[in-house]
């Protein structure tokens, strides 16, 4: 039994099918990449998993427990953490205080929570900025903060929503390394990404969405050669050479 399982999940908004009969699984200790052209429904999938939206149809389960109908805070308590595509820091709190909010998920004592937050900051490389306010951080550091905060909740599964977006190449490499470190510490990762190089090198498996449907699934190499995938990204006029 995989850690996260989606089965025939559908969700529409108004008349638009954002996600259509989607099924895939994320095995424990894996890094799974979720890719697809813009508007293919990737963030909707995250929102369905984390309880922001209710699916119209289908089943979602985590470690054998159903996710359907659970509020976001309940989903987090089950062990799923997430970052947001557009970072959502607590702007009046320092970097440390931001991460501390996450740490309080599993730790009740204020001083221990502070120490845990410091440890997570060290892991992501933000320790030197602990007293800074989020508005004074670079975009790369804000992404790191978002990651650190979710990580502090001690998730079993971490949903990363385009953490590489807007980063320079050097920063992207650092982020890939960071993701690997986090994975090595025992966290399963489900990653939405547009930066192909990053998601291809990170992931064990890739799921490709197009118009809310899964059009391909497999190892990065298999997916990169899949004609359906190429057509989805490049359009009908292009055929593989």
């Amino acid at each position: 039994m995989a850690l996260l399982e989606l089965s025939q999940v559908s969700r529409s908004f108004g008349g638009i099918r954002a996600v259509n009969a989607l099924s895939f699984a994320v095995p424990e200790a894996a890094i799974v990449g979720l890719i697809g052209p813009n508007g293919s429904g990737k963030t909707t999938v995250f929102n369905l998993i984390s309880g922001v939206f209710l699916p119209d149809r289908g089943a979602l389960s985590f470690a054998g427990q159903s996710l359907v109908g659970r509020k976001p805070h309940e989903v987090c308590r089950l062990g799923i953490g997430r970052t947001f595509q557009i970072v959502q820091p607590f702007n009046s709190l320092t970097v440390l205080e931001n991460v501390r909010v996450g740490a309080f998920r599993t730790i009740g004592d204020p001083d221990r929570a502070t120490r845990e937050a410091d440890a997570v900051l060290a892991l992501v490389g933000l320790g030197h900025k602990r007293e800074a306010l989020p508005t004074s951080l670079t975009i790369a550091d804000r992404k790191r903060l978002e990651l650190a905060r979710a990580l502090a909740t001690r998730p079993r599964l971490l949903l990363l929503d385009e953490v590489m977006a807007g980063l320079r190449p050097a920063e992207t490499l650092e982020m890939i390394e960071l993701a690997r470190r986090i994975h090595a510490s025992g966290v399963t990762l489900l990653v939405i990404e547009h930066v192909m190089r990053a998601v291809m090198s990170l992931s064990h498996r890739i799921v490709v969405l197009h118009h809310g449907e899964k059009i391909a699934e497999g190892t990065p190499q298999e997916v990169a050669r899949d004609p359906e995938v190429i057509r989805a990204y490049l359009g009908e006029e292009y055929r593989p050479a």
Partner: protein
Amino acid sequence: MPSQYVIHLAVMILFFAYLGVAWNILGGYAGQFSFGHAAFFGLGAYTSTLLHIHYGVSPWLGMVLGGLAGVLLGLGSGFLSFRYGLRGPYFALVMLAFAEMLRLLFETWMSKTYPLGLPIPLKGTSLLDFQFKDKGHYFYIVLVMLIAATWLCHRLARSRIGAYWMAIRDNEDAAEALGINAFAYKLLAMAISAVLTAMGGTFYAQYFLTLEVNELFGVQISVEILLSAIIGGAGTVFGPLVGAVALQLLSEVTRVYIRAFSGFDLMIYGCVLILVIIFLPQGLLEGMRRPYRALVRAVARA
């Protein structure tokens, strides 16, 4: 021995600081600005007073029972507001609406039996009856109340509860994604804020010894309650004290040196509120901290 007038001024400062701290827990920390705290204030005052007059209940016990009534009202209005996702100004206005409804109900009820206000029978100085000829005793009582409330606020701010409140305040959706049950924590803030405010109502009743519906449930008192927190610094432990000192002193100075009229201090408060919102939205406390920090840095460099 300071005069009764000076003691009265001190009592008013500490009292409005206390009410500011109470409001601040829901408004400054949890980020839910209520424009209707008069509801808890008046409810507390009338609960203890009516129990005292009709059943001889000591106002001290009445204070606790009034606090309980406040909690129930707070949980009720909070449940409705938060369950249906009211935020920001809509929450503020709905709380105002609740307070106004309560005011109208009490006005209808009281106008028949006590058209000129509800007087508390004078007992001279009596600890059991919470009445003192010498205002000095009231000073010590409100001082204890303020210290207790401030200590509570300080402890909560440092704890998980405080961190969760501030997270909810800054970004409720992100907070939920971190495992925070925003609904429950907002209700908690509401309950604590309500009980403290209601108990403040009892103090007010016992200090002035007559209750008038419009004074206790009106928009004016709701505004005065939130003003010391907003002007001093919402979301800080000592902001309400700074705000209360500033507002009460300003009110006294203008009353003494400028020909005052009823409503003059409200007009001044309005001006101060406007100035603070535009130039110092973090409040006076932060406004004082900035030059202080700059001074410290300048000295360190020298």
